[in-house]
């Protein structure tokens, strides 16, 4: 199997001595749509920064499509397109120039660079803005400009660090569509996001990183199957004084008066409704409390935090 990205024992100590990555291993197969998830400061951008040559690693190996970054850097870079977390284009350049210049850095001759820039600016809905200086674009347009710039040399692996931060819902959906399309056409995609529904909608494989360590790396399907309990919120017609007793279900009444019901996997919801019916409680609407992946993610990170805490307690 060809891996688009292989990371072994990646370690990063920043100049101030802070250890941001504690020797992580990660593999992303060719053609995958991969999410790297984790709370703020977990080490996502550091990892992607090392892969993109923006951060120096302290130790470890990185290979992009088999090209070792220590010995075959130029070929590794040619296969890679990068959309960083923070805007990093020249604010004074026109959108079109930002993209064609980037193509030039990859050695693409001007005529071809212009054609490619046109193609991707059009695909990302920025063609009208081609003569606008980058700083005068809106936040969402700037993100899309960075995506166009990252694709101009048609990389086989596209890395996106929070591509949809600050992008409105409609645009986010159209960006998802776009990313799914280019993934289907063969581009491997790795993204980080704090919108778990995004990862759930797009990705096939997921790694969760916390405090510089990968705490989980598996397929989305396996991960979701692991979710043993799902929490539902029920809005009822009658105002309830306290949580009703529903045998077989864990029930709470939340502040807004909605019923919070935990349902273990495999339990039929019919049983829940039969019981509610019996007690004369009429349900008007029902929704899941959190997106499924989000629920799992929160549990895992909390669990990891507890363990980290224990280690500290033991060692101190």
């Amino acid at each position, binding site marked *: 199997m060809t891996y688009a990205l292989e990371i072994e024992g990646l370690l990063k100590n920043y100049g101030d001595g802070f250890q941001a990555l504690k020797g992580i291993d990660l593999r992303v197969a060719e053609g995958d749509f991969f999410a790297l998830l984790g709370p703020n400061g977990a080490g996502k951008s550091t990892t992607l920064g090392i892969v*993109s040559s923006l951060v120096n690693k302290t130790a470890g190996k990185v290979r992009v499509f088999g090209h070792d970054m220590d010995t075959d850097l130029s070929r590794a*870079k040619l296969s890679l397109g990068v959309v960083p977390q923070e805007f*990093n284009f*020249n604010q004074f*350049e026109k959108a079109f*120039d930002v993209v064609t*210049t980037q193509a030039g*850095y990859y*050695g693409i001759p001007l005529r071809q660079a212009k054609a490619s820039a046109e193609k991707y600016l059009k695909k990302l809905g920025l063609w009208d803005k081609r003569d606008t200086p980058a700083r005068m674009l809106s936040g969402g347009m700037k993100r899309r400009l960075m995506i166009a710039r990252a694709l101009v040399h048609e990389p086989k692996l596209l890395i996106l660090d929070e591509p949809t931060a600050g992008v409105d819902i409609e645009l986010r959906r159209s960006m998802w569509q776009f990313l799914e399309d280019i993934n289907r056409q063969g581009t491997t995609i790795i993204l980080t996001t704090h919108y778990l529904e995004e990862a759930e909608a797009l990705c096939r494989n997921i790694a969760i990183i916390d405090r510089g360590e990968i705490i989980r790396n598996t397929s989305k399907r396996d991960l979701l199957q692991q979710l043993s309990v799902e929490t539902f919120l029920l809005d009822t017609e009658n105002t309830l004084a306290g949580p009703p007793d529903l045998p077989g279900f864990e029930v709470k009444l939340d502040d807004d008066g909605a019923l919070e019901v935990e349902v273990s996997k495999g339990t039929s919801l019919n049983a829940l409704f039969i019981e509610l019916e019996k007690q004369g409680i009429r349900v008007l609407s029902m929704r899941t409390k959190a997106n499924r992946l989000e629920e799992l993610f929160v549990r895992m990170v909390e669990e990891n935090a507890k363990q980290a805490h224990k280690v500290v307690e033991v060692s101190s």
Partner: protein
Amino acid sequence: MTFSALWTAFYTILTREIRRFTRIWPQTLLPPAVTMTLYFIIFGSLIGSRIGEMGGFDYMQFIVPGLIMMAVITNSYSNVVSSFFSMKFQRSIEELLVSPVPNWAILAGYVAGGMARGLSIGVIVTLLSLAFTQLSIHNLAMVVVTVFLTSALFSLGGFINAMLATKFDDISIVPTFVLTPLTYLGGVFYSIDMLPGFWQGVSMANPILYMVNGFRYGILGVSDVNPFVSLGMIAVFIVLLAAVALHLLSRGKGIRH
């Protein structure tokens, strides 16, 4: 990268640099033209007429090569230092870091950009000077080689300054406290023959003196120093500074964490 891909990358950096300094021409091309015109009027025409001859030429003719050189030096330097530092500051340097352009090609692109600005100013100032005096060229090859190498050298200096700078103040310290004094004391306005022996010796330690005199030799045929020694010195400095710049780039000093 293949040779033609490397050439494209180099050329892209160069054209982006040219686009930058022509876009902001009121900050880059206009000021030296104005300053140098003032020098020509005040030192050349007004005061110069009272000074009489220097080095066998009238004062205006004597200072023109020095002033051209001064403009080339400051503009080559400041083009690279401002452009590269602002790339660092806006982080658009990352566009280059993710790409396969090797460090030496990045350096070459910026140096060529600094030379493009320095030499354009050189041409502008030369044309302006023609309004005040006549220039005949003693040795064209010497003129061209000296001005090209000097411009390359100070572009490299600007690049190193930008690599080391961490805040905007840092990019004006060297031009103000090192470059300007060395230029003024580098024989732009006088021949070091006029100085007492001790100060002549001190002046000989000023590298800019050699560049100004090498260039003056090319135009007027007179020089305080051997023009070939000048060329040799510039070449040695170029090699030295290029090595330093490449070392800083490969360590990613100030641009990669």
